[in-house]
C-alpha cells in the first residue's frame, strides 16, 4: 500500500499573473485597468504588481499637456485595484457556494483613511505596487498599500474597501 504522505500544497507566494489573468479576475477593463502584471501573490493576504507609465497614456494627456504627471488619485486607484486582485484570487480558489448570476462581487472603495504622495510619477517610470490585506469586519476590509519606483517610495496609505454585488 503506498504510504499516504501528506502533499504539501504551499501557498504559492511567488505566483505571477499576466494582464489577461488579471482581467479575468477583475470586473475592470482597459482603459481603467491599472495593474499590468502581478509579480507576487498570496491570495487573500498580500500582493505585488506593476504598472508602467507611458507618454501616450490617455489618462495623462490632459494632466498636464506640457508635463505629464500621474494623478495622485490614479495611484490610489492602482493600489486599490491590486488589493482587489489579491482578494479576487482568494475567491477564485474557493468553491462556488451559490450562483450569483455570473456577476463578480465588486470591491468598492469605502474610505481613504490616509494617503501620502511623496514624489511625482512621470512617463518611463515603472510603479511597483504593494497591497497587504488587514483587518476585516462584516463586508469591510482594510488594506495597507504602497507604490515605489525603484527604491524610491512614491506613495503609501490605508484604504477601506467594501464587498458589494
Amino acid at each position, binding site marked *: 500500500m503506498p504510504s499516504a504522505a501528506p502533499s504539501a500544497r504551499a501557498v504559492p507566494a511567488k505566483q505571477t499573473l499576466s494582464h489577461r489573468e488579471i482581467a479575468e479576475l477583475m470586473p475592470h477593463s482597459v482603459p481603467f485597468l491599472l495593474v499590468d502584471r502581478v509579480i507576487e501573490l498570496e491570495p487573500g493576504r498580500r500582493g505585488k504588481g506593476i504598472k508602467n507609465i507611458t507618454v501616450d497614456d490617455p489618462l495623462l494627456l490632459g494632466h498636464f499637456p506640457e508635463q505629464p504627471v500621474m494623478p495622485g488619485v490614479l495611484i490610489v486607484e492602482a493600489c486599490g485595484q491590486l488589493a482587489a486582485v489579491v482578494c479576487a484570487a482568494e475567491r477564485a480558489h474557493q468553491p462556488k457556494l451559490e450562483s450569483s448570476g455570473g456577476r463578480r462581487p465588486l470591491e468598492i472603495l*469605502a474610505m481613504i483613511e490616509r494617503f501620502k504622495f511623496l514624489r511625482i510619477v512621470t512617463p518611463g517610470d515603472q510603479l511597483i505596487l504593494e497591497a497587504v490585506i*488587514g*483587518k476585516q*469586519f462584516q463586508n469591510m476590509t*482594510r488594506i495597507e498599500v504602497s507604490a515605489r519606483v525603484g527604491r524610491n517610495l512614491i506613495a503609501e496609505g490605508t484604504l*477601506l474597501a467594501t464587498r458589494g454585488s
Partner: protein
Amino acid sequence: MTSQMKLAIERRSELTAKVKNILIDRLSLKAEPNEITEDAPLFGMGLALDSIDALVLIVGIEDEFDISLNTTDHQIYRSINTLVDHLIGTEAAKATHV
C-alpha cells in the same frame, strides 16, 4: 460598597473612558465623552455607526490596547458597554495565564 466593587467600578470607568476617547479620536467625532451613551446600540437607532466607522474603531482599539479583536462575534459590538465587557473578559483571561 465592598472594595472589590469599588475596584470593578474604577476599572470599568477607566476602560469606558478609553474606548470613548478612541471613538472620538479615530472617528473625528465632535463630541465629548460625557455626550456619548454607553448603552446605546452602536449600529442603527443609537450611535448609528456604519461599517466603515466600525472597522476604524476596531483598529483603534486594537492599536491602543495592543490586542486582536474577534470580528465575527457580533455580540461584542452591541454597544460601548459590551465592547468594554469583552475587553474586561480578555484582560481576565490574560491574568489567569500568568
